[in-house]
């Protein structure tokens, strides 16, 4: 019997850490486990007993890449429970803040993680050496997103101005308008970037998948809207936990999400969103999608990078539109009177739908919190991808096999995805 096991540990990673174990016997996968450590579990416990007003300061600390997503799901959910009427303009300012996060997160993934993978570079450093002008421009584009977040959020790493009821301080129109020329320059680059993405060698890996995302009647859904799936499911934040279920998995301290009725995994993120929101793509975003070769509907996960490029264009276009029409909310925030009950909400984090639930008492204390990040919802689907993908590449040498497995995982942009390549290979041969 021939044993072959591949271990891909990814260690000491602040955004999460994980490892992939694949065991092959006589050409068959006998064991495949993806382990990821998830910070939200700690935060759920940490939130218990806190006052609701503290929540927007605590939850962004869960992720250094997408703090806004955590704030938005929490704030919207609590506002619905407390029946808060937010000041006019709040909704638009939140969408603008979220656009900033999509830009910085998507650009990071496309240029620092996906592109080096597709081009066969060992790291972003190799890619920077080979394509310095492109990487330099990518960092400038990312900066535009960071700066938007800084202006609106009051601070870049963990924004401090969003609060239940609105913003503690709304930016002055002048501050935002100064961003427009940079946003326009960035947007002008995206069709060229889409053309470049179309030239990258991409492993074809089309397979059926149930993709899930929020939808909205009037716009590409980010902050508001019910859930739809590509197989026809319809639900929303209030029914989220009756439609999907988190399962404890023996091999991992992470929870895996599946559909309650079928027990099957589902797929969240940019590719799911673009499939379910195609009618609301903005003009440059639609053009970029076309240029990348992304035909819709599309279930090949390796088109996620193309979807990210199109969504980056959308975020730039939306940011320009929202800034041009911007009038600061007055007052910056509404008064909030807590009441007991259950708050639920979803928003579209860069990596996919992020679900929050809070049980609150009459004084606005959090009795229980539940946070289901997109990475943990995608975990089971990632494993399914790997099970389908690995048999087709088993003939490759260990080093390449490891790289391809990583590529499948990184393609989802999981929180572990920023981890540098750190591989040790254990090969057992009988």
């Amino acid at each position: 019997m021939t044993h072959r096991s591949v271990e891909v540990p990814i260690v000491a990673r602040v955004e999460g850490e994980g490892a992939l174990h694949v065991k092959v016997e006589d050409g068959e996968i006998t064991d495949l486990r993806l382990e990821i450590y998830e910070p939200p579990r700690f935060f759920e416990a940490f939130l218990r007993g806190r006052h609701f007003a503290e929540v927007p300061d605590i939850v962004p600390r869960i992720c250094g890449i997408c703090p806004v997503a955590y704030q938005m799901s929490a704030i919207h959910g609590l506002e619905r429970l407390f029946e808060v009427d937010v000041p006019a303009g709040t909704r638009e300012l939140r969408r603008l803040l979220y656009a900033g996060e999509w830009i910085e997160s998507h650009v990071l993934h496309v240029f620092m993680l996906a592109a080096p993978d597709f081009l066969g570079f060992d790291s972003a450093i190799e890619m920077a050496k080979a394509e310095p002008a492109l990487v330099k421009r990518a960092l400038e584009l990312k900066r535009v997103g960071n700066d938007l977040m800084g202006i609106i959020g009051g601070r870049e790493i963990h924004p401090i101005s969003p609060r239940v009821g609105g913003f503690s301080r709304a930016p002055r129109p002048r501050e935002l308008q100064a961003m427009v020329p940079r946003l326009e320059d960035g947007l002008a680059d995206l069709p060229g970037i889409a053309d470049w993405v179309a030239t990258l060698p991409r492993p074809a890996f089309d397979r059926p998948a149930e993709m899930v995302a929020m939808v909205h009647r009037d716009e590409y859904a980010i902050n508001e809207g019910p859930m739809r799936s590509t197989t026809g499911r319809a639900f929303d934040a209030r029914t989220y936990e009756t439609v999907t279920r988190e399962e404890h998995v023996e091999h991992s301290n992470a929870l895996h999400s599946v559909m309650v009725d079928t027990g099957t995994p589902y797929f969240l993120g940019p590719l799911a969103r673009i499939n379910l929101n195609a009618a609301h793509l903005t003009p440059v975003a639609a053009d970029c999608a076309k240029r990348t070769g992304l035909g819709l509907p599309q279930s090949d996960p390796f088109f996620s990078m193309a979807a990210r490029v199109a969504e980056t264009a959308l975020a730039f276009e939306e940011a320009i539109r929202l800034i041009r029409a911007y009038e600061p909310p007055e007052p910056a925030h509404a008064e909030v009177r807590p009441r007991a009950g259950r708050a639920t909400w979803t928003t579209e984090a860069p990596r996919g739908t992020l679900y929050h639930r809070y049980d609150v008492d009459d004084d606005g204390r959090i009795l229980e919190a539940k946070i289901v990040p997109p990475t943990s919802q995608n975990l089971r689907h990632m494993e399914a991808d790997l099970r389908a993908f690995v048999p087709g590449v088993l003939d490759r040498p260990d080093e390449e096999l490891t790289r391809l497995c990583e590529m499948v995982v990184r393609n989802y942009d999981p929180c572990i995805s920023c981890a540098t390549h750190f591989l040790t290979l254990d090969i057992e041969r009988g």
Partner: protein
Amino acid sequence: VSGVIRIVACGNPDAGDDGVAIAVAAAVRDRLAGSDRAEVFDVGPAIDAVPLLDEGGPVILLDAIRTRGGRPAGEVVRVEAGPDGLPVELGGPVSSHGFGVADAVAVARALGSTAPVVVIGVEAGDVTIGHGLSPAVAEAVPRAADLVLGELLALAPTS
């Protein structure tokens, strides 16, 4: 030396010792109060330090580190970057963020940065999300800040 001196702190303040650089930057900021000798930045993920390494002036990078082979938690290390980046024993993949300072310096160099770069690193122990600094690392904060101020004096010995 021409150009503004930048002090750039990387790390997550909510992940145990990974937040040490942010604490060192705060201590440096306190001690520099009123001085225009340097600009201090908290960038969080090290990738966001790259643009700051390409603006001409010297840079002092602060980060929690894990050296290959390991040193006792709280040990403060000073390393100068060369034309290609940092020595590899610091740039080990077990940096406390996936994309660490060594990667940031290497990318900046690949993009043409010639800025003088010094890294003041503090060996991290516990980097658990939600924990504060471990005692050994908290004790290292003033020592690391002293080292940063010493660097500043060497770079701009005026006033």
